């Protein structure tokens, strides 16, 4: 406490000195005392700070819920009046404030450095804002990662893994900006905004979507597995994807200019964001305690409208496919305005439009196929994480097998992994081709969807697997008598919504057995079915 106060006093003192000085000279402090060495010092410090945030914070964030789970305080919290939303929000802001506190510790030092020149105070404050955003993002994703992992130890490992690539990229970027370029991230962002506003907003919204989506996902995981209660979260997830789709739609035309690496990285990143939570939702299995039955009883009309958004059985698959469909308009975009630009080579641009549409369609079909596989695995009883990763791996293995067959028989247009002439519709190739100027050429291995009489083997492959796994999943559900798309009956029928009128019955033991009890409870459930039918 004392230390905090001392820090705040120092910050306040230096800040006021700075402002006084700035007012007196009516110019920036760096104009007075600017020296190269202090500038460098500030940048080195900013880099070290980023390093610390990226290295330490994921560990901190990743254990936030799992630690509570292992200490059994989580169960206690969940029996209080706190809603899952409040709990997750609380966790998020607790992490955020911890992170901001870490920043505050370093603040006095940096503020003093600005007195010596180098970076202007307001730029430094903006830079701190960027760091706060980074912390907020790590906190949000960390809360999700922590909510996913049940066991504390696993969470300690999984979260840093989760963050490994983004953090590596962040460190790389921070190192480049601070150490090589000797600029602030803020100024880089401002340049980015000036040169490519759409890409800028796209990037910002990716951060926003993934952060908000992570928090929503964590709430979803924390909510009781009751479809009606998870309805708002599901609708929220749907709306976030809708937002992402709109950005795709808006941004798609500028992809045409093929700025190169970054555009495709962003696309791959989006595909990645799309994939992980959707695969998990698809593979979540039909454990639908109190499915739509309850909602149907309370709100018969709303239940019909909302049925797709409630979890359970094939609704999981349909929900995910519905989200994928949101992205189709982006593939259809006609970019006449760009084509009329006299500076653009018309042939390349037209090819770009076709390529873009093909890319969208093949990615969407691939996603649908993968969803169906994950769903099928979920129906077979795999957990959602297992289903998601199995689906992903199976698809890769299938493509690799096809590749071997293709090399053996040299079949043209076969879906296969091939650097020169591959299909872009597998994650393998998507990642491989992203960031490559030659992406268009890879896609050229297939005829365009818009060529007359074109047959896309990759699409046939993906649609066929989609149908196959959907049928198989339905078959498994029927055999296992699991809810498929039932609205009222059959669906979690063994859960009791209404208290049977009978006294408790003890079986076998001979104690407190009421022979009429069994009949009564049956007639009790009959009458319940009747009420549901009446309302239906």
């Amino acid at each position: 406490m004392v230390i905090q106060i001392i820090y705040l006093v120092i910050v306040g003192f230096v800040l006021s000195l700075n402002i006084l000085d700035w007012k007196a000279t009516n110019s920036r402090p760096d104009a007075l005392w600017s020296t190269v060495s202090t500038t460098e010092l500030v940048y080195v410090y900013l880099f070290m700070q980023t390093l610390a945030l990226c290295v330490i914070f994921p560990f901190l964030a990743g254990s936030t819920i799992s630690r509570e789970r292992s200490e059994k305080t989580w169960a206690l919290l969940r029996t209080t009046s706190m809603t899952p939303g409040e709990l997750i929000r609380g966790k998020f802001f607790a992490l955020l404030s911890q992170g901001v506190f870490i920043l505050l510790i370093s603040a006095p030092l940096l503020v003093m450095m600005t007195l010596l020149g180098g970076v202007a105070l307001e730029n430094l404050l903006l830079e701190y804002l960027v760091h706060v955003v980074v912390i907020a993002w790590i906190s949000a994703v960390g809360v999700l990662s922590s909510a996913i992992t049940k066991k504390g130890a696993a969470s300690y490992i999984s979260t840093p893994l989760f963050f490994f690539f983004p953090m590596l990229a962040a460190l790389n970027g921070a190192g480049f900006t601070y150490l090589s370029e000797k600029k602030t991230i803020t100024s880089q962002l401002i340049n980015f905004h000036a040169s490519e506003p759409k890409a800028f907003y796209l990037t910002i919204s990716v951060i926003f979507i993934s952060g908000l989506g992570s928090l929503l996902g964590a709430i979803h995981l924390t909510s009781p597995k009751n479809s009606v209660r998870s309805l708002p979260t599901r609708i929220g997830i749907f709306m976030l994807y809708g937002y992402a789709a709109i950005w795709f739609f808006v941004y798609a035309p500028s992809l045409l200019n093929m700025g190169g690496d970054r555009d495709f990285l962003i696309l791959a990143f989006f595909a990645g964001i799309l994939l992980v939570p959707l695969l998990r939702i698809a593979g979540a299995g039909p454990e639908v305690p109190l499915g739509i039955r309850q909602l149907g009883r309370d709100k018969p009309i709303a239940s019909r409208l909302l049925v797709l958004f409630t979890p359970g059985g094939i609704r999981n698959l349909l929900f995910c496919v519905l989200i994928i469909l949101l992205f189709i308009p982006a593939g259809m975009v006609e970019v006449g305005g760009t084509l009329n630009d006299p500076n653009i080579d018309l042939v390349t641009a037209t090819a770009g439009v076709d390529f873009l549409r093909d890319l969208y369609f093949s990615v969407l079909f691939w996603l649908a196929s993968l969803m169906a596989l994950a769903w099928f695995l979920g129906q077979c009883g795999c957990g959602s994480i297992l289903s998601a990763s199995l689906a992903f791996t199976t698809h890769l293995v299938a493509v690799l097998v096809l590749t071997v067959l293709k090399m053996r028989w040299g079949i043209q247009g076969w879906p296969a992994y091939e650097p020169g002439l591959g299909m872009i519709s597998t994650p393998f190739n998507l990642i491989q081709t992203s960031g490559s100027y030659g992406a268009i050429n890879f896609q050229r291995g297939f005829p365009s969807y818009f060529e007359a009489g074109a047959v896309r083997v990759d699409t046939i492959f993906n649609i066929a697997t989609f149908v196959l796994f959907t049928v198989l999943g339905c078959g498994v559900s029927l055999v296992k008598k699991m809810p498929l798309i039932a609205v009222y009956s059959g669906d979690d029928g063994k859960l009791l919504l209404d208290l049977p009128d009978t006294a408790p019955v003890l079986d076998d033991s001979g104690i407190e057995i009421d022979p009429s009890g069994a009949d009564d409870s049956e007639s009790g459930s009959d009458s319940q079915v009747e009420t549901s039918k009446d309302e239906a």
Partner: protein
Amino acid sequence: MSLSGAILQVRNLSVSFGKIKAVNNVNFDVERGVIHGFIGPNGAGKTTTIRVISTLQVPDEGGVWVNGQNVLTQPDSIRMNLGYMPDHVGVYAGLSVHEYLEFFAMTRRIYGAKKASVIADVVELTDLGDLLDREVESLSKGMRQRMCLAQTLLHEPDLLILDEPASGLDPRARIEFRDLILELRRLGKTVFLSSHILSELSPICDSVSIIEKGRVVAHGSIDEIQTLMSQGKTSFDVTLLKDPGNELEPLLSQLPGFMLVMIQGKKFRFEWTGDVEEVSKVWELLSTNGFVISGISKKEDNLENIFMSLTTGEVQ
């Protein structure tokens, strides 16, 4: 909603973890204002049942009603009226007891002056006054249990669900804990507590359910269970003033329901089948025939024995 006085109703409850049926078609009621013991060996399914009751676990089949409200459809209003103490009381590092209670008061949406008065009340009840500034981590097991119990009382719930509250307590702490629970019953609370050791808390229980391998094998008041266990027979040890010789058996055997178990000098033991009230016929018959009774004791079938016989499968 509920016609009976039951505060807790469990019907056809089943919970599975993969192939393990942790809870298998469990049915019982708990009356309002009683102390109910939920007793069974480790792994019997107590914690799982308790988690369903506390709205933490979704069952596979059946349902649980608290105050006539279904845990699945109305978890929020149930939580307002239920205090839950988990089997292991975890604590947040660096908090004092007072901060811990304040935190949980806020999670119950109790703020301001109300919070201060509520905390003062539960602190007095659970006798935590001397510990308020202690760090939670430095507390002994018994103190932690009391602190957690205090936490369950903050929002003045009617039903307290305590999972193995007495396990790991030293004898003194256990006795204090029993007194505390009796005090809570006096305040009108219903206390549902689990234990894997019957003798630990059964002396204060009004009713018990005995669970084994996911099934409730006996349920009722302790008297009922004892009667049922002895199949309606009650044993009595009687001491007479002087040795009755051989006269006793022909005399008493005329009473239906009487069976002499053993006779040894002035002492004898018999089993009485049927209504225990009517055993007075034995005393009348003895006194009209000039036998003076110097001592009678009804032989209590030790609950521990009942527990052993129930949970070794004898009953099943």
